[in-house]
């Protein structure tokens, strides 16, 4: 039953999603892409779409994957998709919603405590590794192409985008649009 599996996956994503949207990507990959609910290409496309639309990546990916996964699993009809996107979007915010409401007072009281600070000092290097793994997992044939011509073009686009985002303060949307234009011309 695809819906139960999606609910279970998104509960885990909501509960362990530390470190912001990009760190959450590696969780989404291991929960949603590896079991095959969506393809790697679709996953990358969702990240791109998330960057171009308002709202956090966590919500955007839950809504899109919730819609696309039932269709890929063979449930035909818009209503199955809408049901999936409502479920995933709701479920991904339930654990943090409960924690925000009931654990927030505790954390405010102990915000300078050793325990809280220590735990987060330990999490920090892990979060960097999580974001790194998301990038590594996406450097594959599905995203970079199979022929050497495609791979060369892809590496150039990737390197150029990296340096432009890193050294300028312009919003990433601009670079996604530029990369889209480059793809249209190059292929």
């Amino acid at each position, binding site marked *: 039953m695809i819906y139960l599996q999606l609910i279970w996956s998104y509960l885990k994503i909501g509960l362990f999603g530390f470190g912001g*949207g990009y760190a959450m990507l590696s969780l989404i990959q291991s929960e949603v892409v590896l079991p095959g609910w969506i393809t790697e290409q679709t996953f990358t496309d969702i990240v791109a779409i998330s960057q171009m639309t308002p709202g956090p990546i966590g919500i955007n990916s839950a809504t899109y994957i919730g819609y696309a996964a039932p269709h890929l699993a063979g449930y035909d009809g818009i209503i199955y998709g809408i049901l999936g996107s409502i479920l995933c979007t709701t479920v991904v915010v339930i654990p943090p919603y409960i924690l925000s409401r009931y654990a*927030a007072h505790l954390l405010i009281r102990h915000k300078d405590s*050793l325990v809280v600070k220590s735990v987060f000092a330990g999490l920090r290097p892990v979060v960097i590794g999580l974001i790194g793994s998301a990038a590594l997992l996406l450097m594959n044939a599905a995203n970079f192409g199979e022929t050497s011509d495609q791979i060369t073009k892809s590496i150039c686009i990737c390197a150029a985008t990296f340096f432009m985002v890193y050294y300028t303060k312009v919003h990433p949307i601009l670079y996604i649009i530029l990369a889209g234009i480059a793809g249209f011309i190059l292929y």
Partner: protein
Amino acid sequence: MFWNLFSTFFKIGMFTFGGGWAMISIVQREVVEHHRWLTNDEFLDLITVTQSLPGILAVNMSVVIGDRLGKFKGSLCAALGTILPSFLIILAIAIFLTPETIKNNDVLNRIFMGIRPAVVALILVPVVTTAKAAKIGWKTVWIPVSVALLIWSGMPVVSNPILYIVLGGLFGYFYFKHRQLKHLKDSEK
């Protein structure tokens, strides 16, 4: 009041690109300066707390502020306001821009072939910037590198990101507490 909370966060959700971090200053302007629901210190306290909770920062922020102002109903209104705009926009995109549409349309296919490697670059940038901000040096760089490689390896159990979140938290708890205690004892001598 509840309607105000909902519409304020709906507006914020509608116009923030790029999620949590980009949102903080906009929320601050609305909640502290415009509506005067919270003082700046109260606001900063709440933000510090939401950063240490799991989940989507933007949603956590709205829940904590909504809860402070209107308990259960307040947190619900604020959270719904934050989620609804992106939910509706992405749902519309999901209906019209399905994976098959992209694959079967020559123009879209070419555009997305250019976009996909750029997305990888967008994810690589925060790896470098957070590593710098966290002062990762030669002594600690093995942690993110091995976490990334193990998750990437796809091997059973060790490729599960949840494992490293739990381990990282536990390690931090024991290691830093141990160091702090040692520091206290040393200063007593």
